[in-house]
């Protein structure tokens, strides 16, 4: 491990010198260095994955060096790329590779029209914990250390006031979406049409301030039928994950309702509720429980497949029907220290997931973020089943 860190530092120095030299070039060039030390990944040695039979990594050290390059190729054409060089060590096995955080070309045929081609981050929706209308990148960003964005074509038009129209087409599987964004008085929001896996959806979101300190917001996504898999008894003592054919004509909705309060001190308090019609009902969860109990006795046979499908299909805090979320955040609770207390609550089973995040500014260029991940509550609840407690430390340096 020490050898790997030394190698990483050596490569980092070489890259840094290269980057300093590159400052002579007419490029916009920024760099940052991120190191994450983690202990025990999600799903390892949980009730879903007893004794880590799925073989998931438990300890990891990931160091990433980001270089942000932006260049105007010609009038109306620019390139934005963030290559990242990764040194990954999981359970003693090291791996080095280079990939792209974001990499796209922007064409501006008109000053108000932007067309991006490539791998790009999209940000849609008004909610904080669950951006359900952002179906193409649904993971919760702030609980993840690193993101993966998709390749596609993004077009956006801004009018002279405060409206914009966006269209996205993903090149990998043909998913696409249209979005109209704007402000109507003090209310801002979106109307969306989305097509994922040839499945049409419509969405709507809005946010409106109440007085100076309060903000209320909501997101709704509706679809006919669902592509989600549900646990079913395939035969006596054997379970499987299958689409619910009989519900193909049912209209499913996901709804997020939230409220935000900002105090004079800089503290922000956010409360959110998610209703997730495509999640497991209490009856479905009972089948899942039976399936887990049976699968654990048949790990050498079909059981591993059932557990593997559960792990693959699991979406963080969108497994059941009802969830709550609370966040208290103050980026400068002390002169150099920020604190965010995030809590997910699975209303269906009474389980909690605590995610405190402490950020320490160690000088103007260095930031250390420590994140804890602590599931508490009933042992048969979702969070306890899928997660064990772990901590991750993130050291970030900006050159």
């Amino acid at each position, binding site marked *: 491990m020490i050898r790997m860190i030394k190698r990483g530092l050596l490569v980092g120095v070489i890259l840094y010198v290269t980057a300093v030299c590159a400052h002579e070039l007419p490029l916009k060039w920024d760099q940052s260095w991120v190191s994450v030390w983690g202990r025990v990944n999600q799903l390892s040695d949980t009730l879903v994955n007893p004794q880590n039979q799925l073989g998931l990594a438990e300890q990891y050290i990931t160091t990433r060096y980001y270089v942000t390059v932006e260049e105007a190729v010609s009038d109306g054409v620019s390139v934005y790329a963030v290559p990242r060089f990764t040194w990954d060590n999981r359970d003693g096995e090291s791996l080095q590779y280079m990939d792209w955080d974001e990499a796209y070309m922007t064409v501006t045929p008109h*000053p108000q029209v932007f067309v991006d081609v490539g791998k790009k981050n999209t940000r849609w929706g008004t909610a904080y914990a669950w951006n359900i209308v952002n179906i193409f990148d649904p993971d919760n960003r*702030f609980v993840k250390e690193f993101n993966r964005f998709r390749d596609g074509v993004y077009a956006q038009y801004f009018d002279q006031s405060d409206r914009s129209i966006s269209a996205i087409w993903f090149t990998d599987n043909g998913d696409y979406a*249209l*979005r109209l964004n704007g402000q109507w008085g*003090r209310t801002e929001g979106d109307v969306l049409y989305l097509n994922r896996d040839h499945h049409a959806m419509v969405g709507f979101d809005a946010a409106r301030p109440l007085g*100076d*300190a309060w903000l209320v917001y909501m997101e709704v996504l509706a679809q006919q039928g669902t592509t989600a898999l549900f646990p079913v008894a395939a035969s006596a003592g054997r379970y499987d994950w299958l689409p619910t054919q009989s519900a193909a004509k049912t209209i499913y909705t996901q709804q997020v309702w939230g409220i935000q309060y900002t105090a004079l001190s800089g503290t922000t308090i956010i409360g959110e509720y998610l209703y997730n019609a495509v999640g497991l009902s209490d009856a479905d969860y009972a089948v899942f429980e039976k399936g887990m109990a049976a699968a654990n006795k048949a790990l050498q046979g079909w059981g591993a497949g059932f557990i593997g499908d559960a792990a693959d299909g699991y979406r963080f805090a969108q497994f059941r029907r009802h969830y709550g979320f609370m966040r208290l955040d103050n980026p400068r609770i002390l002169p150099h220290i920020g604190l965010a207390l995030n809590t997910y609550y699975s209303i269906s089973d009474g389980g909690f997931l605590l995610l405190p995040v402490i950020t320490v500014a160690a000088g103007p260029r260095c930031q250390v973020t420590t994140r804890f991940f602590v599931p508490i509550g009933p042992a048969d609840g979702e969070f306890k089943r899928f997660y064990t407690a772990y901590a991750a430390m993130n050291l970030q340096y900006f050159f």
Partner: protein
Amino acid sequence: MFKKWSKGVAALIIVGAIIAGGTMAVNTDGSDHPIGSDETPEVALSSALSPPVTQAVSIKAVAAAPLATTDIAPHADAAAILERVDGYRGYQEPFSMAITVTDRGTDGKPGNRLRFTAHIKDRGSSFLQYTYPPVDQGKLLLMVNEAIWFYHKKISKPLRLSQRQRLLGNVSNADVARANFAIDYTPQVRGFEVIDGQKALMLTLTAKHEQVAYAQIIMAVHPRTYRPILGRFYAASGKLLKTSTYDSYQRVGDGEKLQTMTIRDAILTDTQTQIEYRDYQLQALPPHYYNPDFLPRIRQLE
């Protein structure tokens, strides 16, 4: 049924696109020029070598200045005076400036420091780009009328904030993002006062709406030049929140602009936060830069 409905939504969005697209033809005025192109109207007015015009105001005078009026100016046009007051912090035209906010503790030593480039479109719209410290680079603060959005790459969407919310030390978001009082406050001339041995014209600024950072501001300005001297900022309850002194001015082109001001907490009077303004430039950005949906596209403006 659902398919028809979803197709209807898609059609609505497309119709919206067509309607909005119809405005493109008329949106080709000067503001459409790409940033940094030769056609961008940009006039550098800052004069770094000009000595600051300093005015001395004691802390004591701010904290305990009496409000007994010694004279009344019955013919004074309060709105016109406030226009002149605002003129010391900016222009009628779109402009940009560099802002440094330094928090000083009770010992007066510099503590946390933030630097921004502020782009002001008009009285209601402005945005700040964090330029220092490096860990904060890429953060943006957009203010449109009474609404403020904070954007950072790490968060999933622009986050709505409050005008009153503390930015650093004693300074709120509005103290930095808003370059004028006229849009949010109705002025009234109170009369004259003697502050630190100098005669000052006193103005009362009353909030026009409840989203504004302060319910009332009492401001002392120079009786002839209307240069701000000090301000007292009150909550809706009447409680004094903070005070400010306008410490120095600088020559910019043919006029004077504010260079430094100091904001002190009304209770912890030993703590002070200094705001420094420099590099005033007339600079117009396209209107959509002040759209919250555009924030993720703003990276480094030069």
